[in-house]
């Protein structure tokens, strides 16, 4: 983009500037540090100029929005057409309580639902399982059977909302329940839109809510790909998640690298299962984190988009442009929130949300200020949602597309993150791909090293967290935190008891046996799972049936 002559001249001028103007000032007042780093430890120079992006080829590396390699965004008009989906992850207690919260959020202008499930649900245990003790309804809603799901979406027309469900190991079961509820509402599966997270690899790496070993887990995932491409075409069948990888301590580069490496593994598994890449790839979606280093985060999103487009086109020979588009949801960084001076978190979330928007996100969850302390209250959730609305309606950053493009620094960082992520992906390829690298503990080890380094930086004071290791104050303990109704566990147990006493238990047994048989073959399990769900088999019963066939995963632990 720059001719050689002017670059040469620029280089001379820059050297002159450094040795005269800058030097003079530095001798008088030295810079704050000898070296500067991004939030993820990439070194930052004093000044960026065309010299730092001289290799940049506009058409090849940036292109136009809605066109390959999608660096500037996946839609031709981006937010000039329509804002991102404002989607607050919510759910707690019983299905009744969550249903009320959803209706409230929809009435407040939220445009999509995002369902949080409690941990027993996420690990495929019913509320009366011994390990569920104390966990029922805590971090999300408790779903034991189709009965709960019917209540959860009562009065919410499923053909009019898009629903994202954070569910992984038992994703097929929850999706089956969603389809069954829709059917009862008279909505056919092809009208449904939404997302299931369904990303098991990052569970092994970072989030820990796995059930089965990798092989049968990958089979369940490809079963969903196949089933949805035929019957639920508008459904996003997976949300390949860097969010939790980042939360576990990864850097921005690692977040991109490990997420895309997992993405590659899913694509390979689906191709191996006999699917055509352009058949399922358009329904793949991604989920990233947004941290505080605004410009690095923007560069991260742009780099991820470009890298994925290149991988899909060059490595997997995808032909459909939709297969190459990295569509992503963003959530602001939970681990960046502090329990100290919680109102400061509103500011952090604003910066992070801005990064996501400047990075071209398709949907966004903004965290609430009190999440380092407890589940958010309604008031905190409203402030978080308003933060998005202020960015959308008042900040002006939405009126033009990819406004930071062309910034020497941002383009340089975009290149750097792409390049460093690619190096990781090559290393993972050498180890035999993401599942192998996870089995060997390589990815976990890299993340933990970053997490530990980060903690040491805070301890040593090299990294400042406002209110935590600088600018502390004496604080009154915060008041008005949300309390989950402790009766939830009892209520769910009672519901289960009633269910088991009133349903057709023979039909349940038959459906489960059928599933067990199919699980031992290589047939698609979705139809059998839908049968089980409709017979009101519980989530725990369905997962136990699969546990008996598939076995359970045991973690590879690294420090």
């Amino acid at each position, binding site marked *: 983009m720059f001719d050689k002559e002017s670059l040469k001249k620029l280089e001379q001028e820059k050297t002159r500037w450094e040795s005269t103007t800058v030097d003079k000032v530095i001798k008088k007042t030295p810079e704050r540090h000898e070296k500067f780093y991004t939030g993820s430890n990439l070194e930052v120079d004093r000044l960026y100029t065309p010299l730092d992006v001289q290799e940049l080829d506009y058409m090849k590396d940036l292109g136009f929005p809605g066109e390959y390699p999608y660096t500037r965004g996946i839609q031709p008009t981006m937010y000039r057409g329509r804002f991102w989906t404002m989607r607050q992850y919510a759910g707690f207690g019983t299905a009744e309580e969550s249903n009320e919260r959803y209706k409230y959020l929809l009435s407040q202008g939220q445009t999509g639902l995002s369902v949080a499930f409690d*941990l*027993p649900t*996420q*690990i495929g*245990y019913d509320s009366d399982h*011994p*390990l*569920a*003790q*104390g*966990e029922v309804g*805590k*971090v999300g809603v408790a779903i034991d059977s189709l009965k709960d799901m019917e209540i959860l979406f009562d009065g919410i027309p499923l053909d009019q909302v898009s629903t994202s469900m954070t569910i992984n190991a038992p994703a097929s079961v929850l999706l089956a329940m969603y389809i069954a509820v829709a059917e009862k509402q008279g909505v056919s599966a092809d009208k449904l839109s939404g997302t299931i997270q369904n990303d098991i690899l990052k*569970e092994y790496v970072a*989030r*820990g*809510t*796995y059930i089965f070993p990798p092989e049968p887990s990958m089979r369940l995932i490809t079963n969903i790909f196949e089933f949805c491409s035929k019957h639920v075409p508008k459904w996003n069948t997976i949300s390949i998640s860097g969010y939790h990888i980042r*939360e*576990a*301590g990864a850097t921005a580069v690692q977040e991109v690298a490990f997420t895309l490496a997992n993405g590659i593994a899913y694509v390979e598994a689906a191709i191996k299962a006999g699917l055509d890449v352009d058949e399922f790839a358009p329904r793949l979606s991604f989920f990233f984190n947004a941290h505080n280093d605004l410009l690095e985060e923007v560069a991260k999103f742009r780099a991820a988009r470009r890298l994925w487009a290149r991988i899909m086109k060059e490595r997997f020979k995808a032909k459909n442009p939709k297969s190459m588009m990295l569509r992503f949801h963003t959530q602001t960084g939970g*681990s960046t*929130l*502090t*329990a*100290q001076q919680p109102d400061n978190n509103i500011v952090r979330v604003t910066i992070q949300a801005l990064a996501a928007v400047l990075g071209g996100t398709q949907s966004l969850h903004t965290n609430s200020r009190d*999440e*380092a*302390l*407890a*589940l958010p209250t309604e008031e905190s959730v409203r402030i978080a949602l308003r933060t998005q609305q202020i960015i959308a309606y008042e900040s002006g950053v939405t009126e033009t597309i990819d406004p930071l493009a062309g910034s020497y620094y941002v383009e340089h960082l975009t290149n750097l993150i792409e390049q460093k992520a690619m190096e990781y992906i090559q290393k993972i390829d050498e180890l035999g791909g993401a599942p192998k690298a996870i089995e060997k503990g390589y990815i976990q080890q890299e993340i*933990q090293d970053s*997490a*530990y380094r980060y*903690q040491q930086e*805070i*301890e040593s004071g090299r990294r400042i*967290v406002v209110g*935590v*290791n600088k600018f502390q104050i004496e604080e009154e*303990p*915060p008041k008005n*935190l949300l309390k*989950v109704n402790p009766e939830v566990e009892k209520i769910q147990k009672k519901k289960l008891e009633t269910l088991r006493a009133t349903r057709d238990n023979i039909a349940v047994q038959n459906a489960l046996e059928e599933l067990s048989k199919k699980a031992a073959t290589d047939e698609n399990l979705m139809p059998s799972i839908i049968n089980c769900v409709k017979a009101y088999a519980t989530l725990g019963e369905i997962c136990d049936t699969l546990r008996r066939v598939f076995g359970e995963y045991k*973690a590879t*632990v690294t*420090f």
Partner: protein
Amino acid sequence: MQETKTIRVLIAKPGLDGHDRGAKVIARALRDAGMEVIYTGLRQTPEQIVEAAIQEDVDVIGLSILSGAHNVLFPRVIELLREKGADDILVVGGGVIPHDDIPYLKECGIAEIFTPGTPISQIVEFIKNNVKK
């Protein structure tokens, strides 16, 4: 004969949440502070935690939980330790724990609760100053 005392700590994650970043960072930091750290992994029941603590003869149990089940699971650990006559073991907890719950947990016998943002050096100091043996 010179006696060498090494503080032994059991780091455990009761309940079902899989977020072990904090637990592992702490485990590593305690190791670097010269302690022997036994890590038991995810999804541990109070029964398993107490049994492991007894067999390993630890001086300290560190419980980490982010899911909100602390009011049920932490006191249960203490109760089991008492039943087994092992209540000389120092028990500390950490994670997303609302301030309102802390007095109750301390009353139950948890020596200290560390919420997000606590410097690790503070945790190390607390352990060193409070081990009972």
